[in-house]
């Protein structure tokens, strides 16, 4: 399993982060674990990829950051989905659906 499949498909990580945050606000590690969980362990996101992505998405206005407390009363930076983020999630989901359908079609030929 490649440690950084995101580099293969630009935007995949964006989509996974948006999807994770759709369930509710969470901090970086939470997002990382959530992605691991929902992809059945296929994707393990390293902090070196995660944080740049989070900051970029924040600058795009898709997610918003705030400081909060973790389950164990530790200070941590939390992220939540914004309205443009939700729209982006919808658009990305649709796009991804089209792509995966097209790829599946392509692979079925022959």
């Amino acid at each position: 399993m490649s440690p950084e499949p995101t580099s293969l498909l630009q935007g995949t990580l964006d989509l996974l982060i948006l999807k994770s945050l759709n369930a509710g606000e969470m901090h970086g590690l939470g997002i990382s674990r959530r992605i691991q969980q929902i992809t059945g362990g296929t994707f393990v996101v390293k902090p070196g990829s995660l944080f740049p992505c989070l900051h970029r998405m924040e600058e795009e206005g898709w997610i918003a950051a705030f400081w909060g407390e973790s389950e164990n009363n530790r200070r941590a930076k939390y992220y939540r989905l914004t309205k443009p983020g939700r729209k982006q999630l919808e658009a990305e989901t649709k796009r991804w659906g089209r792509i995966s359908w097209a790829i599946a079609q392509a692979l079925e030929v022959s």
Partner: protein
Amino acid sequence: MPLPVKVRSFLRNLFLSRRVEADLDQEVHAHLELLIEENIRAGMLPHEAQRAARIELGGVEQVKEQVRDSRTGAFLDSILQDLRFALRQLVRSPGFALTAVLILALGIAANVIVFGVVQALVLRQLDVPHADRVMTLQPKDGGPFVSNPEMRDVRDGNTVFSAVADYEFQDFGFEAKGVTRPVWGCEVSGQYFEVVGIKPFLGRLLERADDDHPGASEVAVISWSAWQSDFGADPNVVGTTVRIDKRPYTIVGVTPEGFHGTEKFAQLDIFVPMANQASLDGFEWLESRSYRNLFSLVRMKDGVTLPQVQAELNAIVARIARQYPKEEEGLALKLARPGMIGDFIGGPIRGFLAGVMVLAGIVLLAACANLGGLFAARTADRAREIAIRMALGSSRWRILRQLLVEAFVISILGGAFACGLSWMALTGLASWHPPTRYPMKFFVLPQPSLILMAFLISVVAGVVFGMMPLRQIFKTDPNEAIKSGGSQSYAGRRWALRDVLLAAQIALCCVTVTAAFVSLRGLGKALTVDLGFNPKNALLTQFDLSQAGYKGDAADHFQRQLLERISQIPGVEAAGYANSTPLSGDTSVGPVFSQQSVDFRPSNRAFYIYRFDVSPGYLAAAGTPLLAGRDVSFADTTKTPSVALVNQEFVRQLFHSEQAVGRYFKNRDGVSIQIVGIVGDGKYFTLSEDQEPAAFFPISQEGNSSTALTVRTQRDTADMVRAIRNVVRDLDVAVPIRELGPWNSQLGLTFFPIQVATVALGLFGAFGLLLSIAGTFGLASYTVSKRLRELSIRVALGAQAKEILSAALGRMLLLLASGSIVGLLLGMAASRLLSAIVYQATAQDPFVLAAVTFTLLLTGTLSVAGPVRRVLHADPAILLREQ
């Protein structure tokens, strides 16, 4: 709305970078804590948990760096960072920074100044509408001069020019508001202002009707600057009557600001119709085909090509030559760019400027090589720092960018400095009046385009020397560099790029030094060359009597009276006058025919001579030796047979023997002239001319209102000047004296080109020398400091001083020697270019060779002396302990 969000983050990243950074730091650390906590919960021991967390995180700094790279405006931000770092670096080593900026500033300034001059004198066209259609016609060989009938024939017989004009410079006695002063102007033919094509600032310009026939209209046009200075910008100046050479003229117009005649380096202030020349000049040349003293200016019709023009010109010229075989045989005209006395001095000036430009380029290249070497050495010194940065995850590109930014900071600072320098130099040059009575002025005012030029040069220079450490950085292996403590083992072992740079730089500097010495030597020779007269202890007074209304016999009478009065002044050893003096710039030339000649076409001549009309006593006053025969006398008149004194070269060329007194030659009109005396050879037109034949005719036989009074005296100059001025005033207060002072100081123009060349080349030479000293010193001390440890071990093991020196600096000396030899050879080749300007320019002169070699040896010794001392005085015990 994504854009405002982005803009906000961009601004936040830019201005609140500290808070953003702190936030990021906390976030990554919090993440680390969470990871550790998670690991502990999974059952790890605390230190294991920490280690695993760190491995998963992959380094706090690296993560932060990756985030930074993904931020909006990350590039700008990191450039700013580089900039701040570069400035800090420079402040930390102010000596290096200052040297680098200064070296670069001088190198860039040299180029910008040269470019400014080239732009003003060569690149820029005349400041008239559609300047590309304006040309001048000049003989295929020789000077820029044509005669008025020739230009009239061209004007009336062509279909390719919309206007054809000719003009002559003239200094007039200009009397306005009761004050008479000599003013330079132009006698112009009727279509002059049609060719020029400018619109008057006030009133009107001269028109064809003004030039229809002598006396058609006595009107003048003045320049904008004369209007400012002589008339206080009086708006009612049109219609004012002034007196030009005592004759009333009406001012009908003022030229627009910026128009100063059609030469690029002269300020002309009055324009009068050429038809009136006889009344102004005192003799008639309007209809003379042999009076070739005029410049031409033509405007080509739109759509006509140069080959068409030249073809038609050839046809016209052939027609003229057929029609007037005696005067016009062999006439051939070609088109040239106007503005440089036709294109007469255009060639030498362009050649000289091209040479200087190459030198300036060389100097800049040498400066870049120098700085490149310094940079490469500094990069090598910083090898450890660079290695650490790489180990911490910095990319090579990032490090290179950092160094490039540093180079740019230096080059931009240097460029800004250079702008100031060249601005001052050009402003000074523009307001400078060369030491001559001619209205010379350099219109080289600094322009904004020069700033752009300086900027471009600095950017290019920055890239050139900033790229030098490129290979070093890409080769750096962090492991190696850190292990070996920054002192790379190959320093001083292999030929590095900086060694080649140094050799190249020394070669380049050697070229500038050679050029400087060649011109210095030329100046020395020029100052001691036998002029054929002795300007020391002699005073020269120049005026033109026609400007005060004297002509013919009246002028002759005035001159004789003057000579008589001057000779009576106590302390005058000898006095005499001539129409002009050698090397004064307005020397006449005429053909000489052998006594047997019957056909007086120009092609049949024996040779051309420089001719002077002189009074008795002139030769003694000028210090020209009379070798045989007698001086001219007032007894030689128009009624007695024509006689002349000739120089030795004349005799050699005409008779091929020494005996000449009593023999004859003929002039253009076929008149036999007897040689009554022989005078010593001299220089007549330029210092660099070959020996030319010359003849001196009795002024009493020729008649000339142009007067150059020569007085030889041992008395105090100021007293004598006052006495002479009083005599002239006493005789007629209206005579406008053009020049009055020591003859030496009036030879300014003669020595002017070589002085300019010497100053320019001397500056380049000095700068080149400075560069090579800096470069050699820098590299020598660098080499020594890199190997000091190794050398001290050798000393500790008993090596002799000689061995140490050859180990430490042997290669430096090899570089110095080979660079110098190549440079010397190049310099010798380049010196040939100088021969047009500099008297007897040659680098094969043993004096020059010795001087250059000595200078280079001295330079080399001086620049390695410091490092040598350091090597020899190094104490192995201290050194080995320190490292």
